[in-house]
């Protein structure tokens, strides 16, 4: 039984540079990290294995060859195996093509028990890959999971965090869950794990080893078109006023007049 964790390598910075022509992020010279939400997914995968004494934690990522580094971090934390889905043909994929490729890879891997994703990636922030993955696989999905209450061979009961409170949801397995930061505290890797990770070589799957329909992968399989991309304008510090409400209201009204807003 495979506990499959899907992760993404993202640039480690809050102010990423963008290429406005191509509508993509400039990745050169920026350190890459495992998407922070995915660390919670890895941790939960390890915990499921520890609490049940069952399963094999398999971490999967689609990306360029250097994404192996992200798998290595998961191995250092204690994951059993890492698969890198990498091929030029997969490049340029949007969330739909990515989730399709991941779904086909999970089918190739076989015997999934549960599939865990972080709730979203911090570069794209779409939160789409998890739900799309479930759709391709025709598995149930539970998003924004904040606690696994119980997990058996073929049933899972979880708590999910929503805008209005918590839902308690039960599902059959296999299913896809996406997790938020409430679910756990990712562990610090151990030295022995780090040493194992140093030697780790990912199993690489390309478009010939995964059975895919070429129409659904890479740029061709991606209906999303980025129309334009820009950094939000930097907010200026603003001004603070102190005083009585009436006086402040007058002051603000005057300011707005000066700025010709009113």
């Amino acid at each position, binding site marked *: 039984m495979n506990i499959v964790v899907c992760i993404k390598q993202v640039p480690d910075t809050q102010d990423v540079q963008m290429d406005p022509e191509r509508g993509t992020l400039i990745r050169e010279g920026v350190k890459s990290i495992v998407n922070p939400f995915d660390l919670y997914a890895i941790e939960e995968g390890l915990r499921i294995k520890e609490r049940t004494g069952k399963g094999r934690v398999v971490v999967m990522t689609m990306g360029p060859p250097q994404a192996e580094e992200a798998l290595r971090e998961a191995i250092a934390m204690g994951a059993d195996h890492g698969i890198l889905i990498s091929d030029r043909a997969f490049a340029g994929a949007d969330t739909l093509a990515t989730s399709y490729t991941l779904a086909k890879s999970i089918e190739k891997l076989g015997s999934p028990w549960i599939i865990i994703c972080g709730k979203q990636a911090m570069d794209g922030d779409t939160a789409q890959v998890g739900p799309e993955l479930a759709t391709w696989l025709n598995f149930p999905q539970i998003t924004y999971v904040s606690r696994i209450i119980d997990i058996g061979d073929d049933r899972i009961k979880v708590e999910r965090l929503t805008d209005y409170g918590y839902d308690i949801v039960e599902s059959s397995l296999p299913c896809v869950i996406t997790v938020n930061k409430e679910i756990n505290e990712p562990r610090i890797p151990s*030295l022995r794990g780090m040493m194992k990770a140093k030697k780790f070589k990912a199993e690489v799957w390309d478009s010939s080893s995964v059975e895919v329909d070429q129409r659904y992968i890479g740029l061709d399989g991606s209906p999303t078109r980025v129309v334009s991309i820009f950094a939000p304008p930097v907010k200026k510090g603003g001004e603070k006023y102190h005083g009585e409400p009436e006086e402040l209201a007058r002051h603000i009204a005057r300011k707005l007049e000066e700025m010709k807003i009113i």
Partner: protein
Amino acid sequence: MIDYFLTEEEQMIKELARKIAEEKIFPKREYYDETQEFPWDIVKVMAESDLFRIFIPEEYEGLGGGVMALTLAVEELSRGCAGIALAFAGTALGTFPIILFGNEEQKKKYLPRVASGEVVAFALTEADAGSDAGNIKTRAIKDGDHYVLNGTKQFITNGGEAGIYVVIALTNPEKGARGASAFIVEKGTPGFSFGKKENKLGIRASATRELIFQDCRVPAENLLGREGMGFIIAMKTFDYSRPGVAAQALGIAQAAIEEAARYAKQRVQFGVPIANFQAIQHMLADMAMKLEAARALTYQVARNIDKGNTKISKESAMVKCLASDVAMEAALNAVQIFGGYGYMKEYPVEKLLRDAKITQIYEGTNQIMRNIIASQLLKEVK
């Protein structure tokens, strides 16, 4: 940046300890400093990340890293909090007698326990035996296949929290220091209890406590080495552990420099950041020079020990003394650069000053260190 040519493993240890410091220690250090609780949650993280294995030989479930590995880990942890780091460093201090002088059975029994995260303590100091360690009064009298311990140890790091204690006691008082022996005593042994827990100026996350032995029967097989070797064991242990105190001081000094430089760039007086003033710049430059010199010497001595250089008492004393003096000066300067804010608990530098002070005192005062250095030096020069 100076390249100290760390091995891949050493680099890994350094990165891991830094990660623990930044992710686990930074958010909790104020709490532990305030409450003086023992930081068990962080000790657990250290254990789970294999940090306790680094100074344990491989055949006893360790990673066999030695003193250099220990130095790197303690330095990084102490950059986070010297008090929390001491749970770890104090364990190494207590474990060295077993690594260096334990027989096969003792090593097999205790070292794997330490490797997996059991806290250890070393007990030499008594009320009337500080620098004058030869003046200890705790007795160990042989009775069949046991030794019976009586006496009180004072200011014992990790006291009460550790599961394993290495205790120096007199088996033959007439012989003075040559009549001392070292014993492994486990927590929970009948007749072994804990007294006063000290309320300290600094390293408040560390437990410093009295150990009380009242007709405490310790199995004879727990004697380390032979009877009469107690002081040799203690002195040799300090040769190995003093670079650890130096490392703690390096971590404190590093934190002081980082805090002071960051603050100097932000703090505006007379219309400019105070980092623009030469008076501040020169303080920072002095701090940086001295820290790097102390670090270079500490690493070199640690590597010497790992290479099997046994005549290292003078050099171990040097790094402990030098690095702790550097840390004290750096912490003082950091508070000065912060000015009034530096005196306030809301800012991190007053704690660095409080924590730095102990490194000039414990594991031999810096006066005793200078005695060791000078006496060896005078012997060497014909």
